């Protein structure tokens, strides 16, 4: 087990990349602590699977290095890296029993039969598949098959990291939840570094201690689920995480305040930088209906169960607010207030207000 360092990694699938667009993975420089749970989150095609395959050794990066602890593993093949990977579609060896499937990675490494039996028993117990051990793996349901492929990863006690490439894609919704909590529990028991790739924010936020949000081959923000929610570094993070996503509204920055549809809005801190496209970002959860504030017209009210999502029109812009209490009626005129310490200006997509000390 070791800390994982990705040092100035870049990858292009083209033989001679010239422009930045040629890179499927733009520069990434990050260190992951031993035993942590990390998620790579981003839409399809953002480079997260590329990054995962580089870590597991299925791909060699065009530039940069991968370090496990202090060892440079960039050029090592997957089987010499001591990593495990669980794929989108469960990979099981059809002709083997569940027991043989779980023992396979150990047998290939010449582990003695006594140790194998003990490890397989232990892992089967953790995954609740003890009663299936002597069944043919081909006949299992998709969620059990996925458990077995996870088990093959966990059965080796020397793994540096276990990687999950959207492992719940083919699992029925009601079982997704079960498997997800199983994973979390496993992470606490095995203490291996786990890296989880997904485009589903719920999966990423519930699983990981730290989430890496990616877009177009670039890391936009690395942070805990709370940080990503509370202070998105980029409008993409604001929009991608949260349901509904952050309101991104046209505005003008004037000194330390923003002017939105002719109304002054108090911000978290001083505006930094100059020029570029400026936008105001505020999460629906931080917009409230108040006595005084920005006049708006309610255009839509949706009851989503735990709270109400209200859509309102201010001048030419429309924005959303999440309200806990009974919402105003559709068509009514209201005043909206933005929570100042959660309201920020973004310049060319990136945050451009100073954090409050």
């Amino acid at each position: 087990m070791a800390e994982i360092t990705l040092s100035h990694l870049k990858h292009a699938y083209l033989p001679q990349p010239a422009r930045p667009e040629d890179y499927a993975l733009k520069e990434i420089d990050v260190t992951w602590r031993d035993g942590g749970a990390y998620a790579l989150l981003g839409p399809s095609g953002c480079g997260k699977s590329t990054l995962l395959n580089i870590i597991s050794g299925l791909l060699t990066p065009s530039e940069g290095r991968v370090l496990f602890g202090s060892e440079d593993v960039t050029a090592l093949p997957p089987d010499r890296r001591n990593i495990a990977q669980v794929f989108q579609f469960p990979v099981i060896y059809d002709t083997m029993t569940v027991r043989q499937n779980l023992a396979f990675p150990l047998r290939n490494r010449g582990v003695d039969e006594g140790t194998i039996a003990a490890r397989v028993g232990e892992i089967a117990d953790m995954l609740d598949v003890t009663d299936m051990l002597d069944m043919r793996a081909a006949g299992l349901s998709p969620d059990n098959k996925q458990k077995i492929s996870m088990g093959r990863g966990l059965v080796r006690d020397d793994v540096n990291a276990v990687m999950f490439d959207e492992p719940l894609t083919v699992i029925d919704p009601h079982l997704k939840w079960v498997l997800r909590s199983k994973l979390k529990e496993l992470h606490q028991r095995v203490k291996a570094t786990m890296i989880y790739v997904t485009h589903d924010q719920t999966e990423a936020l519930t699983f990981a201690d730290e989430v890496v949000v990616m877009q177009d081959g670039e890391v936009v923000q690395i942070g805990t689920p709370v940080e990503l929610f509370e202070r998105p570094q980029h409008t993409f993070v604001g929009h991608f995480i949260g349901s509904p996503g952050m309101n991104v509204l046209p505005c003008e920055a004037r000194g330390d305040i923003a002017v939105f549809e002719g109304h002054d809005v108090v911000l978290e801190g001083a505006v930094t930088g100059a020029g570029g496209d400026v936008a105001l970002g505020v999460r629906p959860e931080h917009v409230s209906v108040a006595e005084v504030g920005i006049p708006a017209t309610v255009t839509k009210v949706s009851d989503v169960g735990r709270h109400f999502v209200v859509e309102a029109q201010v001048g030419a812009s429309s924005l959303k607010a999440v309200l806990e209490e009974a919402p105003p009626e559709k068509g009514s005129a209201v005043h909206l207030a933005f929570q100042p310490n959660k309201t920020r200006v973004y310049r060319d997509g990136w945050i451009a207000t100073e954090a409050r000390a």
Partner: protein
Amino acid sequence: MKTINQRAWFFVLPVLFLVAFNALVPMMTVVNYSVQETFGNNKFFWQGLDWFEQILRSERFQAALGRQFMFTAIILAIEVPLGIIIALSMPRKGVWVPVCLVLMALPMLIPWNVVGAMWNIFALPKIGMLGYFMNDVLGVNYDMTQDPLAAWITVIVMDVWHWTSLVVLLCYAGLVSIPDAYYQAAKIDGASPWAVFRYIQLPKMKTVLTIAILLRFMDSFNIYTEPFVLTGGGPGNSTTLLSIDLVKIALGQFDLGPAAAMSLIYFAITLLVSWVFYTLMTKDDQQ
């Protein structure tokens, strides 16, 4: 209570009609011949199961059947492993894929009697390239018109040349359908190339391989045209396979009764072996 609609039967009629004319009626004609004796003039005499008994007891039939089983066993033993090896070594993607596929398909596109004629000319001593090369360049005594062993080798090599492609193409289809994740997982699990073949490729090829073996069994067991054109069943009777013998009895000697009985026995053996093989191969899947 559900009313049972009998109209569905009408939809089966066209198929029944087709099957009747391309299988049942000809088959019943053969059955008809197999239990009677005829001397022409459309006169028939009841013979019972005599022909069947006569055929089964005849040394000539037993010898031909023996040769037939040996031929089929040899070509299966060569074509199946060779086909798998070639399929495994073919590229999975890139510009060479269509080239390989076309090259593989070529032998199968040649009409059977042309294959026989080609190999006949190719293998004749003095005239053919192979015959000339073996005798006059390598100095090996090779004459398929005189030497039974040479004739057998030529017939087998010809069949391997003609039909290995079928096994290759079917196996290849099975191989390309394996998702990359399987190979990646195997790599991570530290599997050896043999383990990848044994636990991933072979199981994934099982269905197509079953079909390939079944097709090659039936085709080679019923083979007629190519060896007939190549060797005419000779030298002597050495390459007289079952269907060649059958044609000799039916059309050469015009013994329609024994020939019909022999056809039915022949058919029964093909059917039985295919059925047993298929049942064994698919038994696991039904569990």
